[in-house]
């Protein structure tokens, strides 16, 4: 069975892009709205 820690979502656009550059990853953006 695969286990996975909860997803830790960033909430700042610039911080996410900086992290993506640092890790050479792509960004998964979840656009939602408060219910």
């Amino acid at each position, binding site marked *: 069975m695969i286990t996975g820690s909860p997803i830790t979502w960033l909430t700042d656009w610039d911080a996410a892009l900086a992290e993506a550059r640092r890790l050479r990853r*792509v960004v998964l953006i979840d656009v939602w709205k408060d219910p």
Partner: protein
Amino acid sequence: MTYPDAAVRAAVNARFVPLRLDLFRDSAVVRPLNVVWTPTLLIADRRGVVHYRSVNFLPPADFLDMLDIGEAQTRLKWAEYDRASDLLASVPARHPGGPLVPEAIYWRGIVAYLKTHANDAMYAIWREIQERYPDSIWARRIP
């Protein structure tokens, strides 16, 4: 639900930078992304350019396929063809019969062309769509 799924969590944590934006609270950032429905999932490169979008929810198995296709679309724009091809090949390998499989095969054909500039390489891959998924919209996109 999708995010509580262990395989989805593992894939997101291992390969992506997860960013959650509120349609209204983050409107200055979200407005240029042309989002009209929530949730919308976008896959973007490290410059913030969006290369793939998926509207509303998907079951975990399809969500994993979407992640692979979306990351592959992003990688191929950065000429990371081998990585893109591996991601696209993983969709039918992991989830044979999944609804996104023809799309993954189609894009793997395009990646093969971009890497080799050989039509034969692309059509050899696309032949699988014509043979196994002749009624899919992706078969109709083969000239």
